[in-house]
């Protein structure tokens, strides 16, 4: 048997199920977003639902809120994550406890992260209680409201706690694989440490930074549980909005949920395409500097 073909052949059974369900679901969603849902008696293709959703004020504020949360949390996570990775690289005892500690948040599920953030930052949480006992605030309600807020601080903090270590881990792995010679040459030629970071190391890890940025951006844009648990009543993020439309007992509302899902899918496809582009960039760069 042809050895090149073998892995593909072996994968066929499971892939028919996985891809079959996936494409079937996607196709059904697409059909329903155009108003084709024969099980409840909707049989005509129409663009009505897209028009209605795309001109709806609630939808636009949801879209804005979703973009705001994912952009802010992803950019902050990248900046802090890279700084963390660089400081780990600089520190002397690399294999110490911190390597376990900074990887811990990656393993913990998002719902648990929400619980931790809630317990600490809610107005009846641990932090306000400590401040109260220290006499810094006189009432729980003096503590700034961070959760269930339109500013989305609670959601962003949860994402940051999960994503900074992820960025740091990816960037640190790449950084530690870059040969020391490059930095040493630059230092020898009179560059400062800062110049080495900005002009030698950062350009080399840039492709990985961009690709990991896309990953966390796509995740936070499409994620449901954190904004559902910590978000304000209005505006809601798009996935929460889609869920609420989906669970509406009136089945005639289903196309609206599917339109939102298709819009989320469209964003994801664009991000996958961007990711592929940067991946090509990575493979172009890697190898030459070893």
């Amino acid at each position, binding site marked *: *048997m042809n050895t090149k073909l073998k892995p593909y*052949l072996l994968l066929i*059974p499971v892939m*028919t*199920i996985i891809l079959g369900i996936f494409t079937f679901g996607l196709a059904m969603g697409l059909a329903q977003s155009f108003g084709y849902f*024969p*099980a*409840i008696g909707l049989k005509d293709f129409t663009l009505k639902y897209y028009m209605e959703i795309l001109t709806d004020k*609630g939808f636009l504020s949801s879209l804005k809120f979703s973009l705001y949360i994912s952009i802010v949390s992803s950019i902050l996570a990248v900046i802090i994550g890279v700084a963390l990775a660089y400081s780990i690289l600089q520190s002397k005892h690399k294999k110490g406890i911190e390597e376990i500690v900074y990887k811990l948040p990656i393993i913990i599920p998002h719902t648990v992260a929400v619980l931790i953030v809630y317990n600490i930052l*809610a*107005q*009846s949480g641990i932090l306000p209680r400590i401040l109260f006992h220290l006499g810094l605030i006189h009432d*729980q*309600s003096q503590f700034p*409201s961070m959760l*269930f*807020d*339109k500013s989305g601080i609670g959601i962003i903090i949860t994402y940051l706690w999960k994503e900074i270590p992820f960025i740091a881990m990816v960037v640190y792995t790449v950084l530690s694989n870059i040969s020391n010679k490059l930095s040493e040459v630059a230092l020898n030629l009179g560059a400062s440490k800062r110049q080495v970071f900005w002009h030698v190391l950062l350009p080399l890890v840039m492709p990985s930074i961009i690709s990991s940025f896309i990953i966390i951006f796509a995740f936070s844009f499409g994620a449901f549980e954190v904004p*559902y*648990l910590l*978000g*304000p*009543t*209005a505006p809601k993020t798009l996935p929460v909005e889609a869920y*609420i439309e*989906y*669970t*509406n*007992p*009136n*089945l005639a*509302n289903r196309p609206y949920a599917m339109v939102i899902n298709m819009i989320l899918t469209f964003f994801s496809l664009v991000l996958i395409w961007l990711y592929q582009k940067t991946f090509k960039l990575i493979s172009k760069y890697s190898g030459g500097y070893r």
Partner: protein
Amino acid sequence: MKRILAFIIIFSLVFSLAACNQNKSKVENISEMEWNQILESAKGTTVNFYGWGGSQMTNNWIDTYLAKRLKEEYDITLNRVPMNIDDILNKLLGEKQLNTEGTVDIVWINGENFYTAKSNDLLYGPFVEKLPNFKKYVDTDSVEVEYDFGFPVEGYEAPYGKAQFVMVYDKERVKNVPIDHKTLLEMAKNNPGKFTYPAPPDFTGSAFVRNIIYDIVGYEQFLTMKADKETVKKAIEPAIDYLKTLKPYLWKEGKTYPATIAQLDNMYSDNEVIMSMTYNPNSVAGKIITGEFPETTNTFVFEKGTIGNTHFLAVPKNAPNKAGALVVINFILSVQAQASKYNPENWGDLPVLDYQKLTEDEKKVFEAIKIGKGVLPQDYLLSHRLPEIPAKLIPIIEEIWIENIPTEGE
């Protein structure tokens, strides 16, 4: 050769799995069977009971009491599958689209979900007339049995239990207990930031909004109202204005609301607010026992009354074991099962049996049950009980709330 064989086996397994669902089509005509025959054919079978699994007490009652008794008396294995009703509806809908035999035998359902399921032809029935206990114990002509959120039941679901909306407060911290929407507003003004309600479409939050509407504009007009947004909007306008007046005194000045009743309960336990609410009037006793709520927790209803509803059990049209399902539902309508369910130590769900139809001994079974701390007696609740708003109007009210209340003032 071995490898090729392995391939063939895997492929055949995959495709037989996909195909096997379609070949079973037992022809069983339950509607023509006598009760004894139904009992006979249910013997030794498994019944899949799908329903909300969010309460440990409820789950416990089904797993320990109900399942055990069914096994002993009817040789039926009860398989409880916890699933939210919207997921169950989607499952039934998916099965209908694929035209396969189902997996669900009994579904715990009511309100707009029943409306959706029945109007999309997902349910089997009418079946309640088949059940001996239904005829024997249930007041078959009462509004609460004939209508589910204003939608005619027509024998497609059997009553399971009753609930009623009550407000929860702490005696220590609320001195003047509100009796209507006006005194509630006063209380909120005196305790700014200490009261709130879950945002609809949360079930309890939505019920709170409906209770406010009832208290301000009455309930009669809604029972026959057209499901039209403009009509509803006009009818509930005074209530929406009231909620706007209430808003600045709420938790976080009403800029945001707890997303679920669980969150509000949590905030109540944490002293962040001084009141909570529930659609199960007896649940408070359980929460005092477990220590979630303080000992001084009590409940009240508005003077004009609060909304009560009945939850039901239905059998899906494609249920594989309809005979078993009927036997289980019939047992749930027995005096022993309803009484055990009513006991707050087990669940605390209000019974659906008609007191007039019970014998003296049967009445004593219910009277012997202690209802527990913080709970209003059943006759008081029943005399302050209002019918639910028709299911079709509820999503419209929730929509109006979302458009008007949380985004107001920006």
